[in-house]
């Protein structure tokens, strides 16, 4: 299930490496992170980073990811500095991202960063003297979410290989979708893409599927994938993503999962969602065995502990 590596190179593999895009790590590195995360799930409070400072730089607000990262750092014994909104920092005075990152990399051992502009984390990793973990850059990548999604898939299916994975909702702007598609291309997945026409998966992401010589199928109807999917990954459709509000009104209820739709699904099927959900998963599913989205969020702490520990070179 997991790749175990020799004791000599366990700590060397990801030490001091930034994680900006899910393609920055290879398959063996993903599996190693998942293995380490499993260890933290069994025993979360391991004070391995007592002498470390983790900078948590959230240039745009995020409750879930920020708290998850800060919990992970705290459980490892690290001190956390940073900000949850750039409005009260020198950024408001016009300080460049480069200057902010150079300054913070003089204080911290690892930088965790969320930024509203695509490419910001990549730039930060190039000017920083310490590793950078991308906690989301605009509509581009969200690699740590991807890893916790993979961990959740592994937990529910017992494997990452050869799965039928359905993505539903906003596939155009959903950065969690982009990252997870790219990652699962390493595991011979078949992709089922369910979205309104306006929100299809971008060609730049489909390119990864084609390059891996894998299949994808496109649908506009959610019911069509119920009999085939091992994993249904739901995402929220936002009104502001539509150029024509009337188009949003037409489709807004077409990508809502409710209890009655689960009858035709496979016995092993599980529902994931990066959260927050609005109405796209009805609450009558929450107590069903297929609902895994809350456990998925909890898994974020273990996976982020694993990343911090691996990048610090202690695991």
């Amino acid at each position, binding site marked *: 299930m997991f790749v175990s590596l020799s004791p000599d190179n366990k700590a060397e593999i990801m030490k001091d490496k930034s994680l900006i*895009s899910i393609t920055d790590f290879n398959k063996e590195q993903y599996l190693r992170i998942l293995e380490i995360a499993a260890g933290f799930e069994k025993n979360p409070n391991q004070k391995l980073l007592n002498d470390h400072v983790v900078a948590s730089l959230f240039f745009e607000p995020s409750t879930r990811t920020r708290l998850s990262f800060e919990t992970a750092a705290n459980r490892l014994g690290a001190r956390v500095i940073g900000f949850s909104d750039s409005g009260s920092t020198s950024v408001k005075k016009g300080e*460049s*991202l*480069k200057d902010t990152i150079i300054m913070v990399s003089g204080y911290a051992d690892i930088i965790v960063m969320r*930024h*509203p*502009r*695509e*490419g*910001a984390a*990549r*730039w930060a990793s190039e000017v920083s003297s310490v590793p950078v973990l991308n906690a989301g*850059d*605009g*509509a*581009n*990548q969200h690699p740590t979410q991807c890893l916790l999604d993979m961990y959740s898939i592994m937990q529910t299916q017992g494997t990452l290989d050869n799965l039928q994975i359905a993505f539903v909702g906003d596939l155009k702007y959903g950065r969690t979708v982009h990252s997870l598609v790219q990652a699962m291309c390493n595991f011979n997945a078949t992709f089922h893409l369910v979205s309104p026409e306006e929100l299809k998966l971008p*060609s*730049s992401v489909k*390119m990864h599927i084609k390059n891996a010589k894998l299949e994808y199928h496109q649908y506009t109807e959610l019911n069509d994938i119920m009999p085939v999917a091992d994993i249904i990954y739901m995402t929220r459709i936002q009104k502001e993503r539509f150029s024509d509000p009337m188009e949003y009104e037409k489709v807004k209820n077409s990508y809502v999962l409710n209890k009655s739709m689960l009858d035709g699904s496979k016995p092993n099927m599980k529902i994931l969602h990066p959260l927050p959900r609005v109405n796209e998963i009805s609450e009558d599913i929450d107590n069903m065995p297929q609902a895994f989205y809350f456990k998925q969020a909890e898994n974020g702490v273990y996976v982020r502990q694993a990343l911090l520990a691996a990048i610090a070179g202690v695991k």
Partner: protein
Amino acid sequence: MENKKHLNVNAIENGTVIDHIPANNVFKVLHILGLEKNKDQVLVGDNLESRKYGRKGLIKVSNTFFDKNEINKIALAAPTATIIEIKNFEVVSKKQVQVPDTIHQIVKCFNPNCITNNEEIPTRFTIVDKEAMKLQCHYCEKITVKNNIIFF
């Protein structure tokens, strides 16, 4: 008796000829190289007959030789172009442009939300499809397609 009329275009003593520019693209190439402001002689031909391509454009620039960045710009705008360098009326070099694998600093990312359009950051692209001319931004990972290529 046939009375053929020819347009006489002098050979250049020193300078560069950009040959085999796709027809109707020649003014785009002129513009991206800033040749409208060139102080030396610039001769332009468009829709000329070409044995190889049917029709072509051509630019002759006296006393001007292009650097690597400029040649990369020509390669992106006119992938079939040939660069001919002339010294003392002799051809010293004749090469078809090669579309590079990566380009630095000469193209703007088309994504307005890319960090390179909001901070002073030199752009970098990988050319992921040389035939369709698709450029992937190193930073935001979005694709800039041929029609959206804007040169600095």
